């Protein structure tokens, strides 16, 4: 746990200093929200059913960009070798990178969610706690899987293509659960979102444990 926090602190320090990952992710997120909402021009009645698709399309696309950036840091100067020669469990590297991906996506969500509410004329304030829960569960699930595949993708040549190819098919259950839960929260409240939240929680547990166990095999030759 301590090693994971050391890696998280290092990643956040580098991100704070360069703001390269965050700025590109935020610009992409805002652009996606603008394009997707303007293209649909929804009525007040259809806006709550459109918002989940807009939000999760933006989260997934920006999230993949963020995960790739997180592992580019380790590829530069072969810093990954420095981590792997240290006396720490590779699972701690996974946990640290997972946490930094969760933070980066969380910051994106903090910008994209209010912007989507603004463009779709949705009053999100009454539903904010439930929406935050859905975002957090979706964020952790996405980052659990994306961190594992991000580590795998940096080892191959066509890494920019490999990550979406590997990741997107496996994200389908998470996206279905997240879109359903978001829609249910916007239309009916937290109680209506229980089945979607269950899918998200199960996804989080399964892929966080899988990542924890498999990361060592992914990063070592």
């Amino acid at each position, binding site marked *: 746990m301590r090693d994971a926090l*050391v890696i998280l602190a290092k990643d956040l320090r580098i991100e704070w200093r360069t703001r390269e990952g965050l700025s590109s992710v935020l610009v992409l997120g805002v652009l996606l929200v603008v394009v997707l909402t303007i293209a649909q021009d929804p009525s007040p009645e259809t806006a709550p059913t459109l918002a989940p698709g807009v939000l999760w399309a933006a989260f997934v696309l920006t999230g993949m960009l963020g995960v790739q950036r997180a592992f580019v840091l380790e590829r530069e*100067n072969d810093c990954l070798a420095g*981590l792997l020669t240290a006396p720490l469990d590779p699972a701690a590297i996974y946990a640290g990178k997972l946490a930094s991906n969760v933070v980066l996506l969380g910051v994106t969500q903090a910008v994209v969610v209010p912007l989507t509410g603004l463009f779709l004329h949705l009053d999100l304030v009454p539903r904010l706690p439930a929406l935050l829960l859905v975002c957090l569960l979706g964020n952790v699930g996405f980052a659990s899987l994306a961190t594992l595949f991000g580590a795998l993708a940096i080892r191959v040549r066509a890494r920019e293509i490999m990550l979406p190819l590997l990741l997107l098919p496996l994200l389908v259950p998470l996206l279905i659960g997240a879109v359903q839960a978001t829609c249910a929260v916007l239309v009916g409240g937290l109680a209506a979102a229980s089945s979607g939240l269950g899918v998200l929680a199960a996804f989080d547990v399964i892929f966080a444990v899988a990542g924890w166990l498999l990361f060592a095999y992914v990063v070592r030759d």
Partner: protein
Amino acid sequence: MVGPPLRAEGLARRFGGMTVLAGVDLALETGETVVLLGPNGAGKTTLLRILALLLAPTDGRLLLFGSDAARAPAALRRRIGYVGHEISCYAELSAAENLAFYARLFRVSEAPGRIARLLAWAGLDGTGRRPVRTYSRGMGQRLALARALLHEPDVLILDDDAVERLQQQLLELRAAGHSTLLATHDVERAAPIASRLAILHRGRIAWAHDGRGADAAVIVAAYRAVVAGSA
């Protein structure tokens, strides 16, 4: 865990159908500087990555300090310092920040003092607060060596290039009694540093010398003969 720092017995490594190491026997005794020579593609980097516990061998056995490296790798990593082709330091952090990061991972006690001493030893004390991306190749390699020495390892493993820019530091380490394994194809610069030499060619140790009376001309002749396939 006692025993010689490093003993490799029949180490082999295949990548798919390609055999890179075909049974390497190599030993490093306490206080020795063993120089592993070999042309590009000889398998030096693969061998050193196995010895640094970054890569598992396909076959053979590696003993570190008398312990089977496959059984307790985390404890053994603490006793190894490794410098690869790249410097393994983050470009956007300063030298001091990079060393502080690794000091936390290696649980280095009294880290600030140790970092300051190492930066001074590596000639980086004046530039220790600058981002590493502004460093020259030589400065980066001195930082990589400082990073590898940070946790006071019992064995230092260095891969290529280092000998060209770090000759002074390597001579100091040899004089201080460090156990060092160094791979290079720079035969002439390596000779004064070595207490023993070996030539790796086509995945095997093709020539070995105990270092006594070995001048650069003898080593260069042996190296050329091995690489030309006549040894």
